[in-house]
Every structure is written in C-alpha cells, then in structure tokens.
C-alpha cells in the first residue's frame, strides 16, 4: 500500500530518529536531483545547522561555516541522508541508521560527550 | 529592509513624546533620596527591637550611601533645575551620604533626628516642585 506525503508539511522540519529512537536532528533541507529529460527526484534529506541558516539568509551560513572552520574542532558540514533509509513516519521520522555507529551523525554531540561531559563524574555513559 | 525602516520610524514617533516632564524627574530624584533616608530610619527602628541582624544594618548603610552619592551627582548635574535649588539639594544629599558613611564605619544607624530632618526637607522640596506643575502631575 502506498501513500503520498506533503514534502513541505510532512517532511521538511520533521525530527529524525535512528532505529533505536535516538534523535538525529531535523530535516533542515530537501535535495532534489534534476535529471535530463526526466522529472526531478527527491534525492535526499539534508541535516545540519548550515543548511538551516542558509534558509534564513545565505550570508549567515557562510559566516557560520567560516567561524566553525576557524574555531571548532568538529566539522559542521551538513549530512545528506537518502530517502531509502525511511522506516516509519509518525510524530518523528524513523530512519534505518544507527546514530552511534554512523560517523557522519551527531559529530558535535559525540565530541562534547567525549571531551567535556564524560570528564565530569556521574554524568552517565 | 522597508519593514525594518517602517518599524524604526514608528518607534521613533512613539518615543518622541515620551519623556517625563523634567521637573517631575527632578522631584523623583529628591523622593528617591528621601526614600533611602526613610529606609535607613526604619531599619534602625527594627534593629532597636532586635528584629533585623547587624549584618543587614551594615548592608543597608553601605547600599544607601552608594545610592546617595549617585543621586547627589545626578541632582548636581540636572540642567533643567535652577542652579540654586540644585546646589541646595545636592548639599543635602552629600550630608546624608556623609551621615550614612559614618554609620557604616561605626556599624550603627546615624542620628535619626538628623536623618528625618533631611528626609523631610527633601520631600518638602519635591512637593513644592510637584505643586508648580499642571494638576495631573501632582500627587
């Protein structure tokens, strides 16, 4: 059985979770692939703060990228996730990924956990 | 960009007329100074009855003397008030500040009669200023 979803209403800005229910982020952008002589295809969801800032103003995204490259030990580059990873759609969209194992995902979260949070006793593992 | 410019113009128009009458502002400064004198007197009455700790007396005297110094400067520099009134009121604030600092050094409330006298003079001046204003600005 198939169903339609509205790209803007039901995909853009929806929260994404991995197969264990961990939040990965939100669909900050949708990537369409243009094909010669054929209709465009929804190729991927884009997750990342730089994509988000670009929606407000492109200059914000450029400044944030430059500042991050200069000051942060972790890349803020957005991640593209193909729609083939869809598992379920409910309050959040569940994807067939494991956020802990996939190195592209939650880079800032993992860095902060490793270098700051876990240095404090009783902060959990 | 046009929306921001419109908002900025609206804000400028809205705030253009929103300055307090200078005489009223000056009266408020005098009332604030009188209020601090009243606060210290009340703290003294409560301290006599053992209802507030000595640490609070130190604290209120220290804060009151700092505020009095600040108010004295604001009053002395208040261009809209006549120079003779300004210097008289600033001098009263200076005397109050000196009393409070002396109290802070000894750790006790200064002479309350003196404090009340200065308070009443400051309130009297504030009332006279209010009386000189149109009806709706008087208390």
């Amino acid at each position, binding site marked *: 059985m198939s169903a339609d979803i509205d790209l*803007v209403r039901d995909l853009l*800005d929806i*929260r*994404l979770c991995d197969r264990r229910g*961990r*939040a990965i*982020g*939100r669909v*900050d952008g949708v990537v369409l692939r243009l094909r010669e002589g054929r209709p465009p295809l929804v190729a991927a969801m884009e*997750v990342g*703060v730089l994509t*988000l800032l670009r*929606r*407000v103003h492109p200059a914000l995204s450029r400044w944030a990228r430059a500042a991050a490259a200069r000051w942060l030990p972790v890349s803020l580059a957005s991640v593209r996730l193909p729609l083939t990873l869809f598992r379920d759609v409910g*309050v959040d969209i569940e994807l067939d990924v494991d956020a802990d194992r996939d190195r592209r995902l939650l880079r*800032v*979260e*993992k860095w*902060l*956990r490793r270098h*700051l*949070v876990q240095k*404090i006793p*009783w*902060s*959990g*593992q | 960009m046009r929306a921001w410019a419109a908002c900025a113009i609206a804000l400028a128009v*809205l*705030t253009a007329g*929103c*300055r*307090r009458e200078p005489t*009223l502002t000056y009266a408020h400064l005098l*009332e*604030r100074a*009188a*209020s*601090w004198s*009243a*606060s210290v*007197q*009340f*703290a003294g009455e*409560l301290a006599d009855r*053992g*209802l*507030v*700790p*000595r*640490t*609070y007396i130190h*604290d*209120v005297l220290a*804060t*009151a003397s700092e*505020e009095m110094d600040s108010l004295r400067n604001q009053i002395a520099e208040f261009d809209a008030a006549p120079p003779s009134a300004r210097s008289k009121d600033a001098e009263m604030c200076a005397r109050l500040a000196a009393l409070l600092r002396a109290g802070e050094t000894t750790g006790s409330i200064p002479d309350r009669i003196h404090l009340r006298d200065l308070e009443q003079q400051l*309130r009297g001046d504030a009332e006279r200023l*209010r009386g000189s204003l149109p009806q*709706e600005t008087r*208390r």
Partner: protein
Amino acid sequence: MKNLLKVGLGILTSIGGFLEVGSLGTALQAGASFRYSLLWSVVVGTICIAFLVEMTGRLAAVSHHTVVDAMRKRFGFPMQAWPLGAQIVVDLLVLASEVGGASLALELATGISIRVWVVPVTLFIWALLWFGTFGTIENGVAVLGLVTLCFVLGAIWLHPDWHAVRAGLLPQLPAADRGEYVYLAVGILGASISPYLVTFYSSGAIEEEWKTSDLMPNRIVAGIGMSFGSVVAMAVVVVAALVLAPRGIRADSYQQAATALSLPFGHWGFRLFCVSLGIGCVGAALELALDVSYIIAQTLGWEWGENKRPAEEARFAIVYTGALLLATLPSLAGIDPLKLTMFSMAVTVLALPFVVGPLIVLMNDKQYLKNHTNGVIGNVAVVTIVVVAFALAALAVPAQLMGS
C-alpha cells in the same frame, strides 16, 4: 487517587513556583509606590498565563509536541528564527536576574557581598540540573517555594482595608505619576506572562509523558494553581502597601524591601523574606536555564530531557551550562538585581507577541490537536492575549523611558 495526587502536587508546585524575582520585585515596587491600585494587573496577568499554560499543556498531551516543536514543523525555521532568538535573549536576561536575586538573598542574610555568592549559587543550580531529574527539580524546589505563603499570612496579619484592596482589582489611572504607573503595570504583566513559562510548561508535559487522560488535571492545575499562586503575588503588593508606602520607602532595591515582613513576623520576618527571595529565584533559575536548552534542542531536533543523563544529551547539557555561565556576568559586574529585573521585564514583553501569536494557528490545527482544538472561549482568550501582548510590546519602550 493517583490523579488526585497529581493534581494536588501540580497545584502546590504552581503556588510554590509562582513568586520569583520578576513577580516579587514588580509587586514590591507597585505596592510601595501605588498601594493597591496595581492589583488588577496581577489578576489580568494570571488569567492570561492560566489560559496559555492550559493550551500548551493540551497541545503537548494530545500531539506529543512541545510548542517549539510544533512551531518549527508548522511554520518552518525562517519564521521561527526571530522569535527563537528573541526568547533566548529574554531567557538569559531573566536568568541573570534570578541568579542575582538568589545571590542577593544570601548577601542580605549573611552580609557577605553578592559578588562572592554568584559563583556558588550558579554552581548549586548547575549541579541540581546536571545530577537531578525533572521531578526532583519541579516538585522539590516548588514545594520549598510554599514558604512564600508567608506573604499571604503577613498581609492578613497587617489588617488591610479590604474595600480598598477590592477597589485595586479594577484598573484606574492615578492622578499623578502615570508614566511610572504604566511602567509598573507593564512590568507586572511581563513578569506574569513570561514566554518561558509557556515553553517550559509544554516541555514539562512531554517530560512527564502526558496523554489525553491528563487534559482535565491540566485544566485544574492551570486554573486553580495559577490563581492560588497569584494570591501570593497580590499579598506582596498588600504587604508593601502597608509597610513600605506609609514610610515613603520606594523599594528601588531589595535592601529597602527586605524589612517588609518584619512587622507581622518579628525577628523571623527578615529571614522569611531572604528565604522566599532565595528559593523563588533558585526555582525560577532552574526553569529558565532548562528552558534555554529546551527551546534550542527542540528547534534543532536534538535529544533532550532533564530525566536523561548528561552523557545521553551532551549538547542539551552544555547549553544550560553555558546559559548559567553567562547569567553570572551582570551580578559579577555589579549590576543591581532589581534594576536588572525591571529592565528584563520590559524586554520580556517585547518578545511576548512572537511566542503567543502562533498559538492562534496551532491551537486550531486538527493535525496536532485532533478533537481537542480550541473552542470559542479558547479562541477569544488567545486572540485577546495576543492583542494584549502587542499592546504591551508597543508600550514597553515608552513605559521604560517615562517610568524608570
């Protein structure tokens, strides 16, 4: 029985958590300067916030979305970016006031400078957030906040003229000092209808996993809890009117107001004032620091929740840590907490329309609320509150110029 306990606890936490530096500071100034004539603004503010928290609680229980979550999905990030930015600024300012207020309570109690207390107070608040759970924070600190009922007892003991008190429940511009009157009215309304209360309440509803069966308890807690809480704020106005106003004490700083309870309670009065200020501020600081993390995490789709360990949600934990660090700066720089409070209340009302406005759409969206969308009363209430919010925002800057 379980529901009854839940409702009871909810009402207690609403009462205990109602008074904080904004509501205390504005109420003290209002009573000292204008006696009972600003009581109406406490009532209006309470009615507005009661409606707002009921709505956001309902949204969370039915849709399993917080207000921020639903705003991002419904309106998209570009529209949400500015209200989000405004609310973060407001939350940080009010958080700084609360940290300052709690530190000042310790200065009043011990005589040791506020600057010495700021760091330990902030560390204490941080530790409660880092190692505690939502339940401990929400229930524990708010129940301790019931100490603020001393203002109610004090007001009764002081035998106010109840006719004059009742007259203060209706708005009337005074003959003099109208600029200051409007300034204080805006401040009281800003303290009552704080945006953080709206977003924090809906986040709390998700933390506690509310369902549609919690809709009636939500309504009772929002209505009765907030009403009882506002009685405490009104009692502060009455106490200031009876103790400070007759002596010409204006309550321009907490040092001047600290003696407000000494007549009804003797030597306990001063201590009760310090404890009420301290606990009220710590409770609100916990909520505000969490709220900054909530709104950023929910907007960006991070893992969030006070019931999780910091290692499970590092970004969430680091954001409230950073917020607390920033909140120490004004007090360390020597800015008076009450002056900072009054300024932050004025800034709060500027952000209010952005947070409340989208509720007109959200609360009527069947995709989120199914059969529990707003009825006529709810819609009239939310539209009225949005109009009030815009009016307050328009008045905030002129009021600040004329009244401060």
